[in-house]
């Protein structure tokens, strides 16, 4: 049952999971107002289908997913749309257009929210379409639309669904709490996801520092009596929960650079996504809430809460006992890959698995760190789970050497942050690489635009030349016809 080996490198970190992980999940009451960011964390926006002043009920579709990387949004409460405007959000770039909905105190549920009669009878295509309409997206931290990932996995012939319950990042324990309290939902959702992905096998992988979750899921699998369902305990090494690293640990194969896990026959989904799929099947409920860890030395009672999507983070922190001591940073996500937020008025997104209120005790060693020159100690390459050479990448990033960055595999960086965690010179390596990837993408886009412009200009030049030639020929033929034979005098007559 236990995977003996795992991916190379990585690091066992201080998990900080004793804070807040023992108790059960706290339900956050419906807030007076929710702020739904159209970008739920993937960088692509959903299209609003409501206008300011519209009345909505619980589960009403408020934004449609036109782009395959955007996820549909539904109202978590009954009320009225009071604003659609750009606000600060927990997304790349820091801002997103948000739909703000104020509660009217009623608990009306939209008519579209109906249990799915028999999910096992739906075709994989139909399942994927319904999952997209229900706004099901990866709840593990990326927020990537599940339907898009499943469709791509089916096209590439994935045979195994790997359910990710590793949850390797320090502080975060919302998946642990969910598996302990709703293991049956996780397993039921896994079966639906396996069908939608066209896969045969299904492996649920959980880190071995969560014995209670492992026991609960093992019991749930026992109740299902499906021989294809397997449970694997993987070593608790950061970043065990990263998709590619987990596949290496469980299947012993490496996903090729530039490829997708589905190319290796595996499609990954988070356990919380599976549980959300089970809720959708049982009640027709789109994703309107999620379980999120509210923790850090800066909150009164660290715990896991189930909160409506769009709930202001201040309400989440209030549900966890409010602020305590001197909080220094409000972080969406854990301390390794999280994003510092400017305000607690930001709404909860589907991709947010943790709200970390950090004090000096939690992050003090890295506050005010001064970047020193690289001493070429090699610690970064020893821990890099993607097998890269961060110090070489760093030199290439500083020189903005695009070819070298590509050759050294900057696009294979999984942004785990281990290199800057171990760097004795406190160089913000992961930041540099992320920025370098943006610059490479911008350069590629500029090259494409310039190639398009060249082609369009050449086509236009040719068209103008042909038109001029045709005009000249027409003129000649008219002149030849009008001119009497033998008349050599110049000048047109038409």
């Amino acid at each position, binding site marked *: 049952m236990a995977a003996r080996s795992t991916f190379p490198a990585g690091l066992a970190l201080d998990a900080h999971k004793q804070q807040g992980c023992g108790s059960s999940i706290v339900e956050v009451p419906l807030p007076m107002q929710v702020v739904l960011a159209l970008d739920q964390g993937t*960088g692509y926006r959903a299209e609003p289908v409501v206008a300011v002043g519209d009345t909505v009920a619980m589960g009403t579709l408020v934004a449609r997913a036109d782009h395959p990387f955007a996820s549909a949004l539904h109202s978590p409460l009954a009320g009225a749309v009071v604003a659609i405007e750009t606000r600060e959000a927990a*997304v*790349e*770039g*820091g801002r997103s257009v948000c739909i703000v909905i104020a509660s009217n105190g009623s608990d009306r549920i939209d008519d579209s929210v109906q249990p799915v009669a028999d999910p096992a009878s739906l075709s994989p295509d139909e399942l994927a379409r319904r999952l997209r309409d229900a706004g099901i997206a990866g709840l593990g931290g990326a927020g990537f639309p599940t339907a898009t990932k499943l469709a791509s996995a089916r096209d590439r012939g994935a045979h195994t669904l790997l359910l990710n319950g590793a949850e390797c990042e320090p502080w975060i324990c919302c998946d642990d709490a969910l598996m302990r309290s709703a293991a049956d939902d996780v397993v039921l959702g896994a079966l639906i996801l396996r069908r939608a992905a066209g896969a045969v096998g299904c492996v649920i992988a959980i880190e071995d520092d969560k014995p209670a979750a492992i026991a609960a899921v093992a019991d749930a699998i026992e109740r299902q009596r499906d021989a294809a369902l397997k449970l694997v305990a993987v070593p608790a090494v950061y970043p065990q929960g990263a998709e590619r690293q987990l596949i290496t640990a469980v299947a012993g194969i490496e996903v090729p650079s530039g490829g997708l896990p589905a190319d290796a026959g595996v499609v990954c989904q988070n356990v919380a996504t599976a549980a959300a799929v089970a809720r959708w099947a049982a009640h027709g409920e789109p994703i309107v809430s999620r379980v999120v860890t509210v923790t850090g030395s800066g909150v009164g009672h660290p715990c896991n809460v189930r909160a409506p999507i769009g709930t202001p983070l201040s309400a989440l922190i209030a549900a966890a006992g409010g602020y305590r001591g001197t909080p220094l*940073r409000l*972080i969406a*996500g854990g*301390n390794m890959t*999280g*994003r*510092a937020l*400017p305000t607690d008025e930001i709404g909860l997104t589907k991709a947010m698995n943790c709200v*970390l209120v*950090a004090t000096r005790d*939690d*992050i003090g060693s*890295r*506050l005010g760190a001064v970047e020193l020159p690289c001493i070429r100690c090699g610690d970064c390459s020893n821990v890099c789970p993607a097998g890269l050479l961060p110090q070489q990448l760093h030199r290439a990033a500083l020189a903005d050497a695009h070819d070298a960055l590509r050759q050294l595999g900057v696009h294979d960086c999984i942004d785990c942050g281990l290199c800057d965690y171990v760097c004795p010179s406190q160089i*913000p390596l*992961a*930041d540099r690489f*992320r*920025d370098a990837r*943006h610059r490479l*993408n*911008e350069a590629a*886009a*500029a090259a494409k*635009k*310039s*190639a*398009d*412009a*060249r082609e*369009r*200009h*050449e*086509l*236009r*030049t040719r068209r103008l030349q042909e038109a001029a030639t045709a005009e000249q020929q027409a003129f000649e033929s008219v002149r030849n016809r009008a001119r009497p034979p033998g008349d050599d005098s110049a000048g047109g007559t038409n």
Partner: protein
Amino acid sequence: MSLDAIVIAVLVAAALAVTLGSALGWAASRIEPDAGSLVEQIDALLPQTQCGQCLYPGCRPYAAAIASGAANIDRCPPGGDATVRALATLLDRSQRTLDPAFGAPKPAQVAWIDEEKCIGCARCLPACPVDAIVGAPRQMHTVIAAQCTGCELCLPPCPVDCIELRPAPAVSLRYRQPRAA
């Protein structure tokens, strides 16, 4: 080692040098460098704005002029100093900066037509070097932002000055926030 051996070695080396040297000289005189591919290489480094600020009617004619030695490499404001440096590397020149006489570099921009003011005269359509303006006489005109190179050639023909240049939409969401901790 006898004197003969040294003499033979020197003679062999000298004969080799003369033979290979004359072969190289002959090849250099007979095989011309491929001017066509040089124009292609230069054209590939130009930004393809097709703006004519270099006083040539497009990027390719300017590339041909550089290849033939008729124009210097410092005439392309949209490419900025980066393009001058790339051309200098390709052509082994020492030039490093743009000639300000031809204009100053600007951030990426795209044309935008104020549809309230546009009278549908269609005069901007033939001015666009990349056919990025859609419209017809007495119909509303609009710019395909994804294709617009921001060359500004549509501005002079417009009789009502309803075209303005706006910053090009961002390609990627560049990371701007402080990182957690």
